[in-house]
C-alpha cells in the first residue's frame, strides 16, 4: 500500500486534463503506441464528437521511481459544470489531485470550484500550469494567481504542456513524493466505496470501487451494505486501458468487480461493498445530487415505455446524477420526469439513450423545481408544470436562487451587467482578482440561467468569461403556469412555469415557433398560449386546401410511393392532441426559441 498513489486531474473545462493524461499514459507505457490517440480516455462517441470529457475515467499506471515499483491510479475528470458530480465522486477515491491551469487563460470559475471540492476531501493539491507551449502563456501572472488562490509557494507549482510533453517526469515525481499513500487496515474487514458502475452488454453490470480497508478476492462472497444483497465476486481486477483481472484487489487500490447482478437498481453509487461472512459497517458515501433542471422523457412509441424504463435504469448505473420518476402525460403517455444537472446534461442523457440504447425519445420543456405554498399553508415541491396547484388555492410560490460567479476581463463588465440584470440578477460583489481580471458575483433565479444564459454570456464576452454557480435556497417569485392549447385542447407536455413578466413574450414566441413546426392539416388550427383562462398569445394555421400531385404515370409511381411511405412513417411518430397531429419537434419548440 505504501507504493500506491491515487490521484485525479481536475481543472476548468478545456484546460487540458485529458491531453495531459495522454502524456502520462504514454510516458509510463501504460498504453502502447498502437492504441494511442488524442484524449484516449474520452472513449465515448459523444465525448469524441463534442471534444469534452463527460465521464470520469479511471486507469491504472505502473511506474518505477528510484528503483521502486509504484501503482498509480489516475482518474481523469470532466470540466463542465454540469458534470461536477463526476468530479466529486472521483475525489473520494483519491488522496491527491493535479490542479491544472491553462497558462493562457489563468484561473477560471471551475478551477476555483473544483479546487474547493478537492480541499473539502482533504486532498493534496499539486498545482500545474499547463499549455506553457502556447504563445499567449502568461506564466508569471498565472503563478501569482495560483499562489494567491491556494497559498502555496511559487516553486511548488509545476510547469507542463500536455501537447508537447513538457514536465511529465516532474509531475510523476511530484505524484509519488507529495501525495500520501492510501491509509487503511489491510487485514481488517473489507470496506470498498462504489464510485461508479456501468452496464456492459457482454459482461453485465460492472462496479467500480476504491478499497478503504481489507481486500477483495476473486470468489469472495460479498455484500452491498445498503441493500443487504449478497453476491459472488465472479471476477475482480484493475482498470488498465481494458479491464485486467486479478486474483485480489488490495487495500488502497481502485478496481472493478463483476458479480451476477441482474437488476440495475441493486447497485447504488456511494454504497459500501463488504464481505458477507466478515461484514464491516457502511462508510460515508456521497452527498445526494440535487438536480437543477427537470424535464419529461417519453418514448416516441407509447408501447416502448417498459423498454425505456429498462434503459434508463441501465444508463443510471453509469450516471449517478440522473434521477427519474414515473410521469404520465395526456399528450405523450407514460414516461419519466427526470432531474438533470443542467441543459448539457439533459442533452447528453437524451443522446446516450439514443446511441447506446437505441431509444428514440421526446424530451419536454425543462423547468426548475419550485415550491408552492397552498392557502392552507401546505408546502409542495413542484418539478412539473402539471403539478402546480390552481392559482386560487395558492398563497405563494418560491423559486430556487443561485449565486453566480463570473470571472472576466474588465472590458466586458458592462455587457455582463446588462445580461445578468436583464435576467433578474442582483449584483452582490465586484472585485479585481488582478488588474486585468474581475470577479462578478450575482444572485440570480436559477430558471434564468437554465435556458440560454451560457450562450449569451459567451457571445457577450467573446468567450472571455467563465461561470460557476451554486444554489443558495429559495425566494418568493411571481411564477405563473402558462398553457399551450391547440384547437382549445391543452397540451400538457408544452405547459411551462414562468415568471409573470416573461409570460407574454414567451407565449408569443412559442406560438410563432409552433406555427412553424406544425404541418397544415385539413382544418384550421388555433394555437393559443394562456394563463388560466386568459389567452395571452394566438396564432392560426390555415387549413390545407389540397394535397394531391398531378401526375402519376409509369415513371412517377416508385418515387411517389416512397414519398408517401416516408410521410406515413413521419405521421406514425406524431402525437394526436384532440384532432391535431403534432410532430415531435413541436415538443422541443421551447428549446429552439431565440
Amino acid at each position: 500500500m505504501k507504493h500506491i498513489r491515487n490521484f485525479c486531474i481536475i481543472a476548468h473545462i478545456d484546460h487540458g486534463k485529458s491531453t495531459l493524461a495522454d502524456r502520462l499514459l504514454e510516458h509510463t507505457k501504460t498504453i502502447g503506441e498502437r492504441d494511442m490517440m488524442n484524449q484516449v480516455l474520452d472513449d465515448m462517441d459523444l465525448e469524441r464528437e463534442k471534444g469534452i470529457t463527460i465521464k470520469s475515467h479511471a486507469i491504472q499506471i505502473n511506474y518505477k521511481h528510484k528503483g521502486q515499483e509504484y501503482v498509480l491510479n489516475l482518474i481523469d475528470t470532466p470540466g463542465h459544470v454540469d458534470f461536477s458530480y463526476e468530479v466529486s465522486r472521483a475525489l473520494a477515491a483519491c488522496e491527491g489531485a493535479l490542479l491544472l491551469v491553462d497558462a493562457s487563460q489563468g484561473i477560471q470559475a471551475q478551477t476555483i470550484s473544483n479546487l474547493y471540492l478537492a480541499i473539502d476531501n482533504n486532498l493534496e493539491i499539486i498545482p500545474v500550469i499547463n499549455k506553457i507551449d502556447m504563445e499567449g502563456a502568461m506564466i508569471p501572472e498565472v503563478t501569482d494567481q495560483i499562489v494567491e488562490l491556494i497559498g502555496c509557494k511559487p516553486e511548488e507549482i509545476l510547469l507542463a504542456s500536455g501537447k508537447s510533453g513538457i514536465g511529465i517526469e516532474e509531475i510523476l515525481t511530484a505524484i509519488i513524493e507529495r501525495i500520501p499513500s492510501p491509509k487503511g487496515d489491510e487485514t481488517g474487514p473489507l470496506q470498498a466505496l462504489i464510485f461508479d458502475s456501468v452496464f456492459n452488454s457482454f459482461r453485465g453490470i460492472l462496479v467500480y470501487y476504491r478499497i478503504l480497508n481489507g481486500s477483495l478476492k476473486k470468489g469472495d462472497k460479498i455484500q452491498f451494505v445498503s441493500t443487504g444483497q449478497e453476491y459472488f465476486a465472479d471476477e475482480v481486477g484493475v482498470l488498465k486501458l481494458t479491464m485486467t483481472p486479478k486474483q485480489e484487489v488490495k487495500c488502497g487500490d481502485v478496481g472493478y468487480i463483476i458479480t451476477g447482478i441482474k437488476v440495475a437498481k441493486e447497485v447504488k453509487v456511494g454504497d459500501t461493498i463488504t464481505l458477507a461472512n466478515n461484514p464491516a459497517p457502511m462508510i460515508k458515501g456521497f452527498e445526494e445530487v440535487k438536480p437543477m433542471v427537470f424535464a419529461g422523457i417519453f418514448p416516441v412509441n407509447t408501447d416502448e415505455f417498459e423498454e425505456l424504463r429498462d434503459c434508463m435504469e441501465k444508463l443510471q448505473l453509469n450516471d449517478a446524477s440522473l434521477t427519474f420518476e414515473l410521469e404520465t402525460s395526456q399528450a405523450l403517455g407514460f414516461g419519466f420526469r427526470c432531474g438533470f444537472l443542467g441543459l448539457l446534461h439533459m442533452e447528453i442523457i437524451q443522446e446516450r439513450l439514443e446511441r447506446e440504447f437505441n431509444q428514440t425519445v421526446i424530451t419536454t420543456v425543462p423547468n426548475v423545481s419550485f415550491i408552492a405554498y397552498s392557502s392552507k399553508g401546505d408546502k409542495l415541491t413542484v418539478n412539473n408544470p402539471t403539478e402546480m396547484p390552481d392559482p386560487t388555492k395558492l398563497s405563494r410560490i418560491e423559486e430556487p436562487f443561485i449565486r453566480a460567479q463570473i470571472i472576466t476581463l474588465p472590458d466586458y463588465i458592462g455587457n455582463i451587467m446588462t445580461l445578468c440584470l436583464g435576467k433578474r440578477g442582483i449584483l452582490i460583489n465586484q472585485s479585481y482578482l488582478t488588474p486585468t481580471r474581475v470577479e462578478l458575483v450575482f444572485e440570480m433565479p436559477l430558471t434564468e440561467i437554465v435556458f440560454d444564459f451560457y450562450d449569451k454570456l459567451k457571445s457577450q464576452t467573446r468567450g472571455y468569461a467563465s461561470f460557476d454557480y451554486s444554489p443558495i435556497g429559495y425566494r418568493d417569485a411571481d411564477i405563473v403556469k402558462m398553457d399551450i392549447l391547440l384547437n382549445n385542447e391543452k397540451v400538457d407536455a408544452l405547459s411551462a412555469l414562468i415568471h409573470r413578466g416573461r409570460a407574454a413574450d414567451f407565449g408569443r414566441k412559442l406560438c410563432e415557433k409552433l406555427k412553424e413546426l406544425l404541418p397544415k392539416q385539413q382544418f384550421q388550427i388555433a394555437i393559443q398560449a394562456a394563463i388560466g383562462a386568459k389567452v395571452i398569445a394566438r396564432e392560426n394555421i390555415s387549413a390545407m386546401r389540397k394535397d394531391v400531385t398531378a401526375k402519376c404515370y409509369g415513371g412517377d409511381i416508385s418515387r411517389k410511393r416512397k414519398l408517401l411511405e416516408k410521410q406515413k412513417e413521419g405521421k406514425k411518430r406524431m402525437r394526436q392532441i384532440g384532432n391535431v397531429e403534432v410532430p415531435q419537434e413541436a415538443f422541443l419548440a421551447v428549446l429552439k426559441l431565440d
Partner: protein
Amino acid sequence: MVSAICTEAALQQSYIQEPVDTIYFGGGTPSLLSPAELEQILQQVFKQFTVNTDAEITLEANPDDISTEKLTYWKNAGINRLSIGIQSFFAEDLQWMNRAHTADQAKACIQLAQQAGFNNITIDLIYGTPTLTDEKWQQNVATAVSLNIPHISCYALTVEPKTALDKMITLHKMENVNSETQSRQFTQLMQWADDAGFEHYEISNFAKPGFRSRHNSSYWQGKHYLGLGPSAHSFNGISRQWNIANNALYLKSIEGNVLPVEVETLTNTQQLNEYIMIRLRTMEGLSLNEIAARWDINAVHKLRAGAEKYLKNDMMVLNNNSLILTRNGRLFADGIAADLFC
C-alpha cells in the same frame, strides 16, 4: 440515339411476353423525330414484339411542331392518337410558362390535326398559375370542349424544388402558387368536365366515353410495360426498373450491349401500397375484393378501418366494395393514400 433505342428494344425483347396493346412516344419531344427515324423505331418494335392490330399508338407533340406535312406522315406511320401540350389558349399564360407556341398556334394545331384525320386527341391544360384567372380557366376548358377534344389531362402547376421557378419564388421575383386558387380551380374543373360529358377517370384525366387513354390506364391497372430510351421506366409486376438518365452514358452502355438499368424489386407491401396509391386516384377506386384476392383479408380490414373517418367526412364512398374518392376527397388523394398505406 434512335439506333441505340432500337438496339435496346432487341436487348429487352424478352421483357414483355404478352402482346403489345399500346405504344407511346413521349417524354421529351418525339414530334421532332424525322419520318425515317419514327419509321425505324416502329419497325423495330413490330419486329421484336407482337403488337395487336388495333394497338393504341400515341405520339406526344408540341403545338409548334405540328404541320400538315408531319401529321400526314405520322398518320401513315400508324400513329392513331396525339397528345398535344397545349397548356393554355392564352398568350399571357404561355409566356409566363416560357412555352414556344402562341395562343393562335394552340388552337390552329388542333384543327389541323383533326383535318388530318386524328380524332383521338388529348391535350394538356395547366391551372393554378399566377396569370390564370378563374375566368380564363373556364374559357380554356370551354375552348377544349368546343373543339370537340375527347380527352383532357389537367395539371396543377407544381413547383419542383431546386428548379428555376422555385428559385424565382424564394427570391420573391415571382408569386408563389396559391393552393387555395388551385383547389378552387380543380373543383370548378370537375364540375365543368362533368357538365360537358367527360368522365373524371383519374385525378388528372378526363375522357369522353370510349376515349380513355388505354396506355395510361395500363399503368393504373398494374399491367406490365417496357420503356425504351434514357430514364425510361419498365415494370413486370414485381420489379420496376429504369434506365440511366444521362444520354451519353446510356449510349455508351447500349453500344456495349449492356442495359444501363437500375432495378427495384417490390415487396408484397410495396406492391399493395402502390395499388392503394394508384387506384385511389381512379374513378373505379380501390377494390377491396381485389385486395382480398391478391393480398389478404387482414389488409382489407385495416383499410376499412382506416377509411372510416374519410367515409364519415364525405371524402370517400364505399361502392360495390370499392373505396372511391369523392370530389372533395380527390383534393387530398395523396394524404389519404399515405394514411391508408400498410
